[in-house]
């Protein structure tokens, strides 16, 4: 159905290489998330798959069919844009029906599919409105509706939630995941938000400067980041990375320990430090601990009830079994 294979794909704009040779396979029905800091080439990669940009070299196979030279309209993919990109002069009904109209479906079939999509997305009451009369979340749903009616081989999402406020974002995140569970269609989702990546993906592709740093399931990336970049990027708050004598004790250039893998105590522990800023989230509290002698401010997660004040001296003990070790090239030591 919707397997997407990239082979030695490259993209340059003039002299600037955005994507160096890159290989990647996204299996049929998989929810793949491209994640990375801005400018890492994740959107470009998505646009190459969509056909909105031409590859400089290499092959893209969709469903086993060589597609790099096929125009976007013929690739059988649907895309949801960051700006939603709805047609402002058409009603919601016409927006959703547009791909069907382009495919030459008869009016009755168009209507049937639009009604069906609208019911799924809670848009039935808004079908006769124009995009300008809808809220951000509703527009987002129309954009998704326009994508699902044509039953594409794969969905492409380009940072679709970044224009929504925080509460809506969480809601839409669930809706998109739910949609994926129901449709079982391949989805490729681009985001810079590692929380979205962790919560939605079957497979995360971490990109930096056009290179794939690591591909894996969210838990694989969390448990065994291949290098320092992935270690620092996946997980919230960030992993503590410690260099120097403490790392040398573990035969590593750098050691990494996640905030949730350090226990905290008022009386005893391996390391000690002074509480700086504490962030109380209710369920959890994050302490930023200074003067640890490790050269870094450590972030430590504690239970919501644990209460230390600014300036208190506390003791910390990392869990050695979940400590990450990296060599002088920044690569993971198994």
């Amino acid at each position, binding site marked *: 159905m919707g397997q997407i294979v990239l082979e030695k794909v490259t993209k340059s704009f003039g002299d600037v290489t955005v994507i160096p040779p890159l290989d990647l396979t996204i299996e049929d029905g998989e929810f793949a998330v491209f994640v990375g800091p801005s400018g890492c080439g994740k959107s470009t990669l998505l646009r190459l798959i*969509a*056909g*909105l940009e031409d590859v400089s070299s290499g092959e893209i196979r969709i469903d086993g069919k060589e597609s790099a030279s096929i*125009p*976007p*309209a*013929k690739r059988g*993919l*649907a*895309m949801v*844009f*960051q*700006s939603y*990109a*709805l*047609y*402002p*002069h058409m009603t919601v009904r016409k927006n959703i029906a*547009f*791909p069907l109209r*382009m*495919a030459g479906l008869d009016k009755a079939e168009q209507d049937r599919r639009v009604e069906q999509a609208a019911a799924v997305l809670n848009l039935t009451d808004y079908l006769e409105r124009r995009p300008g009369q809808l809220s951000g979340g509703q527009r987002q749903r129309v954009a998704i509706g*326009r994508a699902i009616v*044509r039953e594409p081989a794969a969905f492409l999402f380009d940072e679709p939630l970044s224009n929504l406020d925080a509460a809506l974002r969480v809601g839409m995140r669930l809706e998109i995941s739910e949609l994926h569970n129901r449709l079982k269609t391949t989805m490729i989702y681009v985001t810079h938000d590692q929380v979205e990546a962790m919560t939605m993906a079957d497979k995360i592709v971490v990109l930096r400067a056009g290179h794939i740093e690591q591909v894996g399931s969210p838990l694989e990336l969390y448990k065994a980041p291949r290098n320092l970049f992935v270690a620092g990027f996946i997980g919230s708050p960030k992993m503590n990375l410690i260099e120097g004598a403490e790392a040398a004790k573990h035969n590593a250039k750098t050691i990494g320990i996640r905030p949730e893998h350090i226990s905290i105590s008022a009386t005893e522990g391996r390391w000690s430090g002074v509480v700086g800023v504490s962030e109380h989230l209710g369920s959890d509290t994050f302490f930023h601990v200074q003067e640890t002698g490790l050269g870094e401010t450590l972030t430590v997660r504690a239970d919501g009830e644990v209460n230390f004040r600014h300036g208190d001296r506390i003791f910390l003990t990392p869990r050695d079994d979940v400590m990450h070790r990296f060599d002088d090239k920044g690569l993971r030591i198994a």
Partner: protein
Amino acid sequence: MARSVTIQRKSLNTLIAWIIGLLLFFPILWTILTSFKTEAQAIADPPVWFFFDWTLENYRVVQERSNYSRFLWNSIIIAGGSTILGMIIAIPAAWSMAFVPSNRTKDILLWMLSTKMLPAVGVLYPIYLIFIQLGLLDTRIGLTIVLMLINLPIMVWMLYTYFKEIPGEILEAARMDGAGLKEEILYVLTPMAIPGIASTVLLNIILAWNEAFWTLNLTAARAAPLTAFIASYSSPEGLFYAKLSAASTMAIAPILILGWFSQKQLVRGLTFGAVK
């Protein structure tokens, strides 16, 4: 903090707006009033305002002395023709500049605008000679082409700024939705661009209708439009103010009516990009 506007301030603003409006409209009003006076009343000192013997005499004389409908017809053909011809060239030009810009696009746009900085009389002589050579003098087709060329930079600029406002992502969405180039232009781009195209057309008709420099210099009898019709009444001899006013009123009436009905569209088109 919201600015609080007092009643006094508001009424002052209204008053000033009305004064400016009336000042701008006064010449037109005076022309229309004068066209209903006798020649003696037209130059009376102190001027008579509303209480004179309203007469249609001037209109009758103007009708008798010259063939209004021929001038009107020429104006329609020249203004309409130059607009249609101009749009045929300007739409694709602005389109490509807005959607497939090159490194030189900005330069070309500025260069086009710079041609408007040249005083028209500076190129009158060469154009006049070219017209004689090509046999275009006093022809509608010649005038249509000249007016089209004069207004082309403005048309391209207006359309360009309008097209620029159409987000590229919408066109990409259409492509992803299965639209080919033809469908993309027909169902997505054109409907979104229509307000811009409409106001460009309107402004251009008005500019071409009122253009006098070229129409007076390049026509004699056959192709003369309404601007020449007005000019034929501004004679240095005799008392012709009232008749001149009647002719002017007849010349500006069609475009005034068109402008009145399309003012909303025009204002929107002219302020587009500045006010969102």
